[in-house]
C-alpha cells in the first residue's frame, strides 16, 4: 500500500522543520503544501530539500488540503494521512491511522477524546454542538469532529479529489457517514502548537467557521 502524508503549511517557519524531521523517521512519502507563506517557510523547504508544492497564490486551508488530495490522486496513492504543519499532530500516530485504512476502513479520524475526557472550554462546546448535529443527521456517535488528523482510503481520495464541497473536517465527516463509508475513530494525543499563530486566534473567524459548519451539516451534507 502506497501512502502519502499531506502537511499543509502557512507561515510555519518555526515549526515546519521540526515536524518534517519527525515525519522523515518513518520512511513514508510526504508532501508539504506551502500556501504562499509570507515568512521564510518556502526558503526552509527549499534549503532542506523537503518534498513540497509551492502555491503561487494563497488558497486557505480548505484549498490546500484539496491540492494534497489532487496530488495523491494523480500519483496513485492508496492512502493519504493529513497532519498539520504546526506540530500539533504527532507523527507517531500516522502508522496507526494507516493500519486502519489497510484493514479496510475508508476514513479514519485521529480523535483526542475517544478514551480521554473532553474538557469544558469554549472550543469544546463548539465541538460538542457539532457532535450533536452529526448524531442527529447520521445517528452515529463521533467524539472529535474537528480533528484535522485523518487518513483517507482510495475511495475517499477519489471523492475529495473531485468535489469542492469539503471545506472542513466536520461536514466532510458528516457527508462520509451519510454516504455509508466505513468510518472509524482511533485515540491519538495532540500537543499545543509549538509556535506561530492559529487561524482560530481570531474570534470572528471561529464564529464564521462554526456557522459554516453548522449550516453545512444541517442543510447540505
Amino acid at each position, binding site marked *: 500500500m502506497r501512502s502519502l502524508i499531506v502537511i499543509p503549511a502557512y507561515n510555519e517557519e518555526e515549526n515546519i522543520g521540526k515536524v518534517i524531521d519527525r515525519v522523515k523517521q518513518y520512511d513514508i512519502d510526504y508532501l508539504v503544501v506551502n500556501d504562499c507563506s509570507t515568512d521564510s517557510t518556502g526558503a526552509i523547504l527549499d534549503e532542506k530539500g523537503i518534498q513540497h508544492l509551492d502555491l503561487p*497564490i494563497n488558497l486557505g486551508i480548505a*484549498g490546500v488540503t484539496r491540492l494534497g488530495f489532487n496530488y495523491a490522486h494523480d500519483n496513485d496513492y492508496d492512502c493519504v494521512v493529513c497532519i498539520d504543519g504546526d506540530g500539533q499532530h504527532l507523527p507517531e500516530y500516522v502508522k496507526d491511522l494507516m493500519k486502519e485504512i489497510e484493514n479496510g476502513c475508508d476514513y479514519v479520524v485521529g480523535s483526542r477524546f475517544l478514551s480521554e475526557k473532553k474538557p469544558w472550554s469554549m472550543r469544546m462546546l463548539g465541538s460538542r454542538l457539532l457532535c450533536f448535529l452529526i448524531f442527529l443527521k447520521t445517528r452515529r456517535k463521533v467524539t472529535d469532529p474537528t480533528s484535522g488528523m485523518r487518513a483517507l482510503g482510495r475511495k475517499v481520495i477519489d471523492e475529495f479529489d473531485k468535489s469542492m464541497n469539503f471545506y472542513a473536517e466536520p461536514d466532510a465527516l458528516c457527508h462520509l457517514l451519510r454516504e455509508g463509508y466505513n468510518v472509524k475513530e482511533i485515540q491519538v494525543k495532540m500537543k499545543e502548537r509549538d509556535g506561530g499563530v492559529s487561524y482560530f486566534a481570531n474570534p470572528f473567524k471561529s464564529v464564521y467557521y462554526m456557522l459554516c459548519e453548522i449550516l453545512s451539516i444541517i442543510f447540505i451534507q
Partner: protein
Amino acid sequence: MSVSLRLGLLIASLSVLIFIITTVAHKRLNIRYSIVWILWALLSLLMAIFPEIFYGLSDLLGIQMPVNTVFLIMTALLYALTFYVYITMTKQTDQIVKLTYEIAYLKKQLEEMKKK
C-alpha cells in the same frame, strides 16, 4: 406613476443603455455579460414608455401604487442577478484552485528535472 418619475426613468434608462454599450465597445465588459444589463436597461425603458403595463400588473397583484410594482420587480431582478454572480464566483473559485494545483505541480516537476 407621475410624469416626472416617467421622465426620470426614461432619461436614466437611456443613459444607462448608452453607458453599457460604450463600455462594451471599449472592451471593458464582455459581450456575454453585457446582455443581461442591456435587457435590464431595455426593460426600464419599456417601463418609462408604457407605464400602463405596470398599472395592469399592480391591479393583478393587488398593489395600490404602481411604483411599488416597479420596486418589487427591480429588487427581484437584483436578487436573481446577484445569485447568478455567486454561481459564477463559485465556478471561478474552483477553476482557480485547479489552476493553482497545476502550476504548483508543474513547478515541482520542473525543479526535480533541473536537479537530475
